[in-house]
């Protein structure tokens, strides 16, 4: 009887060890994607709300360098970082839980170095607004000048998120 219990325990332990190996390899994380939403306006920046944060000087200058994205004020409304999976799609909801801005993305191939090709969709108010394929590079994000809101426009930035450093 004692031996029987021992065998069952060993089998259970073996199953527990093998379980991670049997996981779907398609769920392997091959990168991270960060989606950030800014409110850009030439009017009152406080219109974005009290919780909206000013963006860094570098980001503001970078946006202003492009004429189509040039506004007097930028405010950070929200951000979400989601894993880029080998076989499955991922959803980023930077304004969670409103669902007003959602980005669906899926890898088109294995990221090479600091570059990744994505199948990307932008959903606004739960409607698909645009579907495209985007090449993201470490220092080269994708900016989408989106809908108007409170005297300004939303800018949705999609970028590769650097891998977090261990211990940080």
């Amino acid at each position: 009887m004692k031996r029987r219990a021992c065998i069952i325990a060993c089998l259970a332990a073996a199953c527990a060890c093998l379980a991670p190996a049997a996981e779907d390899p398609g769920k392997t994380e091959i990168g991270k994607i960060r989606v950030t939403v800014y409110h850009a306006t030439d009017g009152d920046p406080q219109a974005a709300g009290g919780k909206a944060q000013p963006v860094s000087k570098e980001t503001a200058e970078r946006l202003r360098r492009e004429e189509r994205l040039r506004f007097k004020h930028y405010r950070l409304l929200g951000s979400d970082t989601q894993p880029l999976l080998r076989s499955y799609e991922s959803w980023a909801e930077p304004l969670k839980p409103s669902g007003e801005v959602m980005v669906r993305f899926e890898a088109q191939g294995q990221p090479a170095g600091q570059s990744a090709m994505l199948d990307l969709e932008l959903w606004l108010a739960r409607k698909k607004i645009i579907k495209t394929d985007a090449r993201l590079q470490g220092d080269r994000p994708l900016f989408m000048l989106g809908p108007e809101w409170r005297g300004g426009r939303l800018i949705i930035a999609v970028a590769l998120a650097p891998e977090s450093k261990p211990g940080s």
Partner: protein
Amino acid sequence: MNTNPDETKLALWLEDELKGEELAAFEQWVAGQPEHHAAREEARRWRSMMAAAVPASEEPPYPEFFNHRVTRAIREEPPVPAVPAKRGFHWQSFFMPLAACAGMVLAFWLGGKNASLTPEIDVAGAPRAIPVEPILYTPEKGVDAEWFTSSKASATVIVLNGVAAIPDATDFSETAFLRELREMDATAGMNPGNQAMEP
């Protein structure tokens, strides 16, 4: 009883081909048929006219010479050569397939060499020299998108036009999912330590 001659006999009589008793019997019947006599006269006149125009037979020019040539040609005709026996082994019999094989191998080799020179285009690392312009699909009616690369901003930009405005009543300050600064630092960024969360 039908005493009228048939059409065949009439035709033979018109051509003056009837002889003997048949001719006599027909002449007896046709005696009272002046139209047939007129037709026979017409036929005779037509035959005489044709005979005057076309000679009955014409001898070939210089028949003796012609016959002599034919006779000589027959006499001098070379004997029919015997069917050549199947040739045996010859160098051409193996040279041609060998040359074809060599040509094929050369073509494959050159093709492979050229293929190895062509850079493979994979999705992840397409050659930088080829501008990859994405396809933009905007399913919503009235929405269009403009894509361009901005060297000044070091970014790719998509400008969406015709998108419905978000109502001002929508308050993102209540729904915004902003993490604390410590978490932002932990997730690192392109410029670590300085607004790391932004691209």
